[in-house]
Each structure stands twice: as structure tokens, then as C-alpha cells.
């Protein structure tokens, strides 16, 4: 019996459920299962080329596509905003290839894919947070040689990082790390928390939800399980500082309890970074 390539391989250009072929999904899933058992360790994986460019969320997207099922509801945000155009593009890629529901309400979502923010609403064990990672290596700024970086993580030798933080404090009077503050996870691995603000760092510590991190360009995933210690690196006499807001309030909803972003100008105007939270507060 003669077979055609189409018969063996399936019809061309038929897009599989959640874009990725089964083997790719299984590979990503295996990496994630290892990651969850080694909190904070960067697990290499065969990152596939996605319809979004490297550096634009291809890693987070691969995680979401590998884990998503027909009963999930997806929320995608960028800087806390569901309507950011890149978030919109990622979300429509996920929903169009799976048929699942989308939402901007955190408590309706089961998977939240995010660039640079943790949603303000509390998440629990029925949530999975997927963070997009530009640079998964927290020590990149202090060491460029990859073999040395591997050794530092393998031996838990983070002395160079501590020296760098100390010098920062001495030179500048404060530790000047902005977003993506380096943290020690489960007392073992220093981890790149992605450029989330310091505001969000305490919410990773002993969280009720699972956080998965996807770095598509650098081809690694890592994880922080729920109820895991996440400690920002600092000194005993230098308390960890979140972003100060000096009494600023959201100009739309009046909130002082959420992370605010600024529109600079003669009259400083602040608003909630988490647009869905803000909108809900205003309409309640």
C-alpha cells in the first residue's frame, strides 16, 4: 500500500491544539516537572520558535501552551495591563489555538501569563502564574563567563553577588536594584525574579500559588512552588525596600494600596498598574 507524506504526517498546516506539537509539549512539561522539584534552578529545554519574537514572551507562551487544557481560563497582562498590545497578541494566540475562555479578572483565571507584574488580587492553589523572563540569569551583571556562572550555582557560591550588593550600598547609600530583585529561593538558588517591581517581591514568598518562569530566548524554565521561601538578598541592617510612593494615589480609583505608575509632567499623575483591579474598584 502506498502512502503519501500527507497520510503519514497529517494534512499540512493544520495547527495542533495549543500550537505546539505533542513532542514539544511533552519536552516542556518534563522540564517544568523537574523545575518544580528544584525551586529556583534554571532547567534548560529545547525552546521552539514561536509566532512571537524572542524577547517578546516566547518562553512564557511556550509554558502556557504546554500546560493549558480545555477547562482553563487565561489572563494575559503586560506591565499589569490586559490591554497592552503585546498581551493582547499573546492572549489571542492562546485562545485561537485552544478555544479556551479569556478574562481580565484574576479570580476568574486559572492561568495568568504576565510580563513584569504580579496581579494585585490574591491568587491561590487553583492559579498558575506564568512569568515572562527576559534574562533568566540573576548573576549576569556580575559575571559573563557561562562556565563560571554554572559553577557558582552548582556550588551555591554567591559571594560575588553579595560583594556587588555591598559595594552598591556603600557607593550609593542604598541598594539600587530596581525591578527583578535577586532572591534566594528555598535557601538554595539565587533566582532572577524577572523585572517585577520590588513591590511584588514579598508576594512570591510563601505564596499560595505556583509560579512558572519561561525564558524562550535563553531556553530555560524555572519554578517557585507554593509555600516556598523567597528571600530578597539584603543585609541584616539594610531592610528590603519596595518602591516608595510618598502618599500618591491612583487618579482613577484613589487607591494607595496598589503599585502605581506615573505619567510625568508638571502635575504628577499616578494610576494603578493593574488596570483590571483598578477598573473593578471603580465600578463596584
Amino acid at each position: 500500500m502506498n502512502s503519501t507524506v500527507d497520510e503519514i504526517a497529517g494534512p499540512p498546516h493544520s495547527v495542533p491544539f495549543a500550537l505546539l506539537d505533542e513532542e514539544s509539549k511533552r519536552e516542556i512539561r518534563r522540564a517544568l516537572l523537574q523545575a518544580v522539584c528544584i525551586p529556583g534552578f534554571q532547567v534548560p529545554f529545547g525552546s521552539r520558535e514561536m509566532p512571537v519574537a524572542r524577547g517578546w514572551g516566547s518562553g512564557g507562551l511556550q509554558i502556557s501552551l504546554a500546560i493549558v487544557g480545555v477547562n482553563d481560563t487565561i489572563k494575559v497582562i503586560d506591565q499589569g495591563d490586559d490591554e497592552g498590545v503585546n498581551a493582547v497578541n499573546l492572549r489571542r494566540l492562546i485562545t485561537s489555538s485552544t478555544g479556551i475562555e479569556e478574562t481580565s479578572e484574576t479570580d476568574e483565571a486559572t492561568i495568568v501569563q504576565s510580563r513584569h507584574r504580579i496581579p494585585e488580587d490574591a491568587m491561590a492553589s487553583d492559579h498558575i502564574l506564568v512569568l515572562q523572563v527576559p534574562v533568566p540569569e540573576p548573576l549576569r551583571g556580575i559575571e559573563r563567563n557561562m562556565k563560571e556562572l554554572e559553577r557558582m550555582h552548582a556550588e551555591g557560591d554567591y559571594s560575588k553577588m553579595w560583594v556587588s550588593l555591598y559595594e552598591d550600598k556603600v557607593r550609593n547609600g542604598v541598594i539600587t536594584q530596581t525591578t527583578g530583585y535577586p532572591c534566594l529561593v528555598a535557601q538554595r538558588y539565587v533566582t532572577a525574579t524577572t523585572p517585577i517591581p520590588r513591590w511584588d517581591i514579598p508576594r512570591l514568598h510563601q505564596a499560595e500559588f505556583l509560579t512558572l518562569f519561561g525564558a524562550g530566548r535563553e531556553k530555560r524554565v524555572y519554578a517557585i512552588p507554593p509555600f516556598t521561601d523567597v528571600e530578597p538578598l539584603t543585609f541584616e541592617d539594610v531592610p528590603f525596600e519596595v518602591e516608595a510612593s510618598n502618599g500618591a494615589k491612583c487618579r482613577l480609583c484613589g487607591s494607595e494600596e496598589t503599585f502605581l505608575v506615573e505619567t510625568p509632567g508638571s502635575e504628577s499623575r499616578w494610576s494603578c498598574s493593574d488596570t483590571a483591579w483598578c477598573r473593578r474598584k471603580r465600578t463596584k
Partner: protein
Amino acid sequence: MGYAAARGGLAAIEFAENLVQELRDGHPSSPLETDQVTGRLRLLVDRVMGEAGLWAPEFTAQALRQAEGDVIEAVHLLRAFKSTLPRIGISDVVNADDMIPERRIVPAFREPGGPQILGRSTDYTARMLSTTPRETKPKVQPAGVTPAEESLDVIPPMQRMSDVLRDMQLLVDRRRTDDPEPFDITRMPAKPPAPRSARLSTMARAETGALVGQWYRNILGPDGYLHEVTLGEVRHGAMPITVTHPVTRNPVKIGEYRVTEVEAIEDLDGIDEDRTLFDIGYGLCFGQNERKAIAMANLDIACHRDGQRSELEQSILMTTDGLDSSGFLEHLKLPHYVTFRSMIERKIAVRQARLQTSPTESKP
């Protein structure tokens, strides 16, 4: 309309997509057919296939058309397309000597074993911009020379320069007796120290400009890991794709593709090297892309000689992929206002610390 805070982000995207499509497909010039791209811009097609790591001239033409000629965009379209294709099998190993060469030059020797074929090349043509491209130029008739009698099907055997040097006992013998599985960079990320197959396959689909730039920077720039080589082989021609028949177990040719292949001869002069010998670097890529294959061969032998002393291999493995580099560069266009707000806050904190006012209190 602010793109980050835009309400109706989806509408903004769809407007942008429509605009691109209308202006691209609605251009008043004659429609661009794919055979025009494959036929008249073949070197561009070859380059894109090489960087995509996919031999598919028709689809490449479509990708170039869709991408309005942006090479990286076209490569992205093809690689993402490749991600949706299932792997139905693995072809048999082929020998590079199975190539039917359209072009072969050997700078290292005046009369190498087998012919030198200048072939289809503009290397020795004066770069004069022809301002009337449609004009049919009269064919140049080389004075007193008749075209070679032999057709390309009966090329005399070409003895590889590396084999010649080996016979003269002038070549380091790095041939191995085992046969390890090649490293599959599409399934596992390579990082130093990496097996040679990882290095070669990374370079085979690296961005052409990135490899040329790496080479040039190393020759003349501050890094200085490389020396100029002498090229032993520059070949371009068709290679067969063969698979093992599932029933008969015989090899079956199912198609062909073209490659450029380069062997670069390196004069060993290091303190811990054997001065009586040469060593070889290897370059291979899809299509006719000679500068890429030459750069690749140079960088291959440079990495080998460097022996992990410097970060050359890391540089090649981690910074020469076109999609990774362009994607990350252009991601700077994405909103970064959360980080920026955090930066402003830290600058104010530093300023305050310098003024020795009371430190900013942490949020409970």
C-alpha cells in the same frame, strides 16, 4: 493613541495588520510571484533558508514576500512554520564528496586534484551598477577559448585539500573512530563547552552578518583570537537527501538541496602546537552563501585552537542567532514603564541618601 495604555489593544493591532496588508498587497506595481523571488533573487532565498535552517524555496519566497523583504522577519516566519511541522524521520548520513559541484575553487594550490570551476560567481566581475536592467546584454565570447567539452555530470574526481595534506603528512589528524550522535540544537540549547557538532550546527543557521562580523572583529578588532587562513576548498553544489526504506532497508534518494562547503587550512604556530602541521576548519550552510561558510570555517578552527581559554565559543554559541539577537534588541520597543518607574524611585532614593535625610521606609 498611546500604545501601551490604549483601550482596545486588539483594535489597534488589527488596524496595524490591515494597514500593513493593504499597503503591501495593494501596491500598484505588478504582483510579486514566488517564482520571481526564487528565480531572480535566488541568493536572498538561499540566505534566508540557511538562517531558517529549512530548505523550502517556495515557502521562503512566500515568507520574503510577506515580510516585505525583511530577512529576519522572513527567517522568523519560516522557523515558526517549521515548529508546526512534525518530524517524520531522519535522513541518512551523506558524504560531502557526494556533492555535484557547480563551483569549486582551491586558493591553496594552483593545480589541485580535479578541476577548479569558477561557476556562477560575480567575484571577478567589475561592480558596475547597470542602470538599464531590462536590457539584454550580448553574451561575452571568450576569445580563442571553447567551452569545456565535459558536462558537469562527468567531473574528474576532485581530491579534497585536506586529503592531499594528509597524504603529505602535513595535517593534524582529528578524525575519530567513534560515531557520536550529533548535538541537536533544535532540541537542546548548546552552551560551552559544547561538542563540535553543536558549534557547527549553530553556525550553520547563524545570521550571516553576525558570523562575518565575529570573524572580522577577531581578525582586526580588539578580540584577536583568529588568524587569516588559507582556503583549501570552496564548493557549491547539490547534495542528495536519502532515507532508509522501511521495508527494503535500502537508501532511497528523495530529493536534493544545495550547500556551500568550505575547508579552511590553518597554519599552526602556537607554543603548544605542532609547527610542522596544518589544521582544518569546516564550514557548511544551505544554498550559495560563500561568505557565511568561509566565516564559519574560520571560526570553527579558531574555536578549536582557542580550547576554551577565551569566551570565543560562548560568543559564537550565544550571540550569533539572528532571531535571538534581533528579537531581544527589538523587545526594547515593548512597554518598560514599570521598570522605569522603579528606576526613577531609586534615583530619588540615592539622592535623598546623599542629602542624608531619613531613609525611605519600607512598605509593611
